[in-house]
């Protein structure tokens, strides 16, 4: 069933009883051409583009819980293309272009909202770094505007311009940056993949990866053995455990990132705003909650929940940047598991095992990458060649030194 205003009208008049499931709930077949382990945003997008771009539909996505239950369902929903290192820049640029056509492509309103993103900076040195970044964005064909303090004040009058500790010098404005409705992205890709014949299998945990003579032959799951010629690991925070089933030890450490939402408020914050002196980013959801977050809790964890020091640091940063939020109340906090790499950039690559592919290491920037990640992982799995915009996301780059370290913090996983 296509979604549009007419179908909503028709169904509404019929008591909304005619809607059908957005995707089927098939049982796993004994064999597929390809398997995607992980039914999150990246896995679902990979399946969707395998079907759409490469005509491959004998595919299953194996999800241990419910679709979209990992990081795609718990993030701060920011979509942007403001990276500056060659290798990242073209990838995120490609991703943003895919976002811009996503609703039409999926026939699903993911509420991609290009409301503009402003990174605030607080010193001459930070201005120079922002200029370097902005010029890289322009060179990539994306948009960037360098704002002075007064120009920022015009757009964001509620920031604390008298704040004495780290005064506001200006901002880097990325107008095409914005947000999207995170769950809808997962559901939209799921529905799209399902409509093209992909089997989405929930409550199906992979417990083993079968490898024969250096070649993958399938997986063992809680719902039985499934054979496949190619298997993609797209399991974000759980990547290390899944890869270990194939004997791989990866450059990944899993960390907690907390995020927060306030009670609903009438529109009061129309952009995505980030603070340059403390890790803090905020936007307002269409439902009215302020959605915000900060740094990792900084210690390896799979608990999907954080502790108070992390909470306090985010609140302190938020209050420092925009004291108006002090009157809002934090309604809910949550923690996600972030697959942190030693340079802060992801991996989309083959592994030493034939037929086993890896899409991982998204740190805490995976949401905006979903379309391009799926696009490039699908390309890799279908053609065995890296997609040009993802060619630097190699697994061996740490050994060779061809790093993509946007933060410049070096080989410590939690610092990116």
């Amino acid at each position, binding site marked *: 069933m296509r979604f549009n205003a007419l179908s909503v009208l028709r169904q509404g008049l019929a008591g909304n009883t005619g809607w059908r499931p957005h995707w089927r709930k098939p049982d796993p077949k004994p064999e597929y051409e390809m398997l995607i382990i992980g039914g999150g945003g990246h896995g679902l997008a990979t399946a969707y583009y395998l079907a759409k771009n490469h005509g491959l539909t004998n595919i299953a996505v194996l999800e241990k819980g419910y679709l979209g239950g990992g990081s795609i369902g718990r993030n701060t929903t920011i979509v942007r293309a403001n990276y500056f290192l060659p290798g990242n820049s073209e990838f995120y640029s490609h991703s943003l272009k895919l976002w811009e056509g996503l609703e039409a492509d999926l026939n699903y309103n993911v509420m991609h909202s290009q409301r503009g993103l402003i990174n605030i900076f607080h010193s001459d040195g930070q201005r120079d770094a922002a200029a370097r970044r902005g010029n890289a964005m322009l060179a990539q064909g994306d948009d960037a505007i360098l704002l002075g303090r007064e120009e920022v004040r015009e757009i964001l009058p509620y920031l604390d311009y008298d704040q004495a500790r780290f005064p506001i010098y200006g901002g880097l404005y990325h107008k095409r940056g914005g947000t999207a409705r995170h769950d809808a992205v997962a559901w939209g890709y799921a529905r799209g993949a399902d409509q093209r014949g992909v089997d989405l299998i929930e409550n199906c945990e992979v417990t083993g990866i079968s490898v024969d003579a250096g070649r993958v032959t399938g997986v063992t799951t809680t719902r039985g053995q499934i054979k496949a010629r190619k298997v993609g690991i797209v399991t974000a925070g*759980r990547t*290390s*455990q899944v890869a270990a089933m194939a004997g791989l*030890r*990866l*450059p*990944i*450490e*899993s960390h907690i990132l907390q995020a927060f939402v306030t009670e609903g408020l009438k529109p009061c914050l129309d952009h995505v705003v980030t603070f340059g002196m403390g890790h803090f980013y905020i936007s307002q959801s269409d439902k009215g909650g302020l959605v915000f977050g900060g740094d990792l809790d*900084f*210690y*390896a*964890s*799979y*608990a999907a929940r954080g*502790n*108070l*020091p992390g909470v*306090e640091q985010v609140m302190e940063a938020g209050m420092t940047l925009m004291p108006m939020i002090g009157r809002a109340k934090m309604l809910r906090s949550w923690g996600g598991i972030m697959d942190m790499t*030693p340079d802060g950039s992801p991996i989309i690559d083959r592994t030493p095992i034939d037929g086993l592919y890896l899409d991982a290491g998204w740190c805490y920037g995976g949401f905006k990458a979903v379309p391009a990640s799926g696009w490039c992982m699908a390309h890799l799995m279908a053609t065995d060649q890296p997609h040009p915009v993802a060619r630097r996301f190699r697994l061996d780059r*740490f*050994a060779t030194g061809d790093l993509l370290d946007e933060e410049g913090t070096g*080989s*410590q*996983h*939690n610092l990116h």
Partner: protein
Amino acid sequence: MRLPCPCCGWRDLREFTYKGAADMLHRPALDDASGWDDHLHNRTNPAGETRDLWYHDPCGTWVCVTRDTVSHAVISGATLGEAR
């Protein structure tokens, strides 16, 4: 979360800076390129008990903490000398 500093006793998380897995306590030989790659980048990243390195900023002691990455239970802390 509270962590045990061998010098100061149990202290709040906010006093500590995390570094990473305790595997880093053993430096490979200078010419062991793959050993260094593994040392610097690869992690067992266990879901369960782990040993990792924390700096207690107020006293300058590095602590090797044994804890659980799933339950967040903190089991013990040792100086790096003891941990090696």
